[in-house]
């Protein structure tokens, strides 16, 4: 089992949710987060004084998937989160990483492992 964690633009969430659903991933955890990568900040103006905002609002999507599904889910997720129609999106589209998961237990039934995913 793997934990797929994606940091994406908040506006991309609807599309990501749609493709994950289509890929058979229904359970997910979504968090509103702030952070920065290579994307530069933006400047806001209040009565002429500048206010630099360098932490961007992002959505963090976390899903646990069986090992065999990882590549498919990551590909779908990346495709949905990428901005624009081309092969290359824009700076700030986000990042996806995969980590190993030792154990999963469903609280309701006590099922373990892949059965609990």
């Amino acid at each position, binding site marked *: 089992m793997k934990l797929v964690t994606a940091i994406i633009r*908040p*506006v991309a*969430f*609807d599309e990501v949710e749609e493709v994950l659903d289509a890929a058979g991933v229904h359970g997910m955890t*979504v968090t*509103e987060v*702030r952070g920065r990568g290579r994307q530069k900040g933006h400047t*806001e*103006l*209040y*009565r*002429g*004084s500048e*206010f630099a*905002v360098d*932490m961007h*609002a992002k*959505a963090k999507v976390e899903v646990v998937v069986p090992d065999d599904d990882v590549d498919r889910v990551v590909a779908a997720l990346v495709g949905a989160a990428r901005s624009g129609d081309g092969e290359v999106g824009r700076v700030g589209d986000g990042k996806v990483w995969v980590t190993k998961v030792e154990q999963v237990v469903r609280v309701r039934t006590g099922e373990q492992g892949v059965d609990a995913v």
Partner: protein
Amino acid sequence: MLMTPGLAFFYGGMVRARSVLNMIMMSFSALGVVGVLWALFGFSAAFGDSVGGVIGNPLDFVALGGILPEGAESIPLVGSIPAAAFVIFQLMFASITVALISGAVADRMKFSAWLIFAGIWATLVYFPVAHWVFAADGLVSERGGWIISDLRAIDFAGGTAVHINAGVAALVLATVLGVRRGWRTHPSRPHNLTLVMIGVALLWFGWIGFNSGSALAADGAAASVLVTTIVSACAGMLAWLVVERVRDGHHTTLGAASGVVAGLVGITPACASVDVVGALVIGLASGAACALAVGIKYRLGYDDSLDVVGVHLVGGLIGTLLVGLVATSSAPTGVDGLFYGGGFDQLWRQAAGAAAVMAYAAVATTVIALAVRACIGLRVDPEDEIAGIDLSQHAESAYDWGRAGGRKGRGSGRGDHAYALVETGLRDAEQAVPGQDHGYAVTGGDRGLS
């Protein structure tokens, strides 16, 4: 009555989320403190029979004696309105003048010190200055204040008594108080510009009563003032937006709101002395000048948090002085300024009136501020300033950010701050890196998933 609550929201939206209640409370408390003093002796000190043109006799109308009607046939009138209505109308001027000052001291002044300062300042500064400027001979009492009666400077609705007066007091108080922690390195971002716009809308509407009501009648003069007031505010908004577009590349919402206020401040002393062209000139001049003036604080190093000096002192001065230039005798006050063939006569009277109010407000406010600081202190503790002044001064927070870690407090009495701090999650976040503006990260910009 709408103006001071409107100002509360206008100012409240401009501060950080963790200081908004304190900001709103300073305006509302100005109504409370000044309202009581006004009823007890303030109205009398402003409009009682003059003692040498300097102060009204505070004993003339103690507790508003002689003001309230005794039966329908003995209603005392001021102009065409009942004296009791005039008392409350003028109370609103007194309250908002005090409330305006609070914009300069956002985020850092002890609320108890503010209440005491507000009461003393109203008594020693506003009441006498209002007497000088508003108490015309024969209006309420036989003899009135020196600026309106002897100097004959024109201040129809409070350019000197309200805006210049409050602007100078704000400059002094902000200087005595010192700058906020992190000022300039971590500037405070307005936490709710929609609240600012609601506030300015209420303020604008209230201002119509403020200016037109100063005609003390529902007549042609009041209608003329209505026109100049609205026109100037519109011009002020446009001028501010143009300055921003040229200087910063964007026209901002806060700029539009500020331009409206600047136009209103500028026209306030002049609203009964100019025609539409004059109102346009004043609105454009105040809007542009105030937009430029709000940056001065960064060069001079005083933390006028919400630009009371940049908007009210500068706008008030422009309006007061422009009366001497663009006043026309076709307007209700019947005086020609320099550009309308009136020579320099009215201009020097305007300048002298403004200078006198500035000098008196500067000296008196300095003494009051230093005295309050020496007696009880003016500033909250640094830790409370970082955690947000709402919690330390009012034991409240404006917004519920979720209940993680929160539970019912043990104490039912005063001051269980730990509970509130844990509930909002602010203390830990703020103390992680003291002095930085983490309010943004913690509380701001929740756009949500869309």
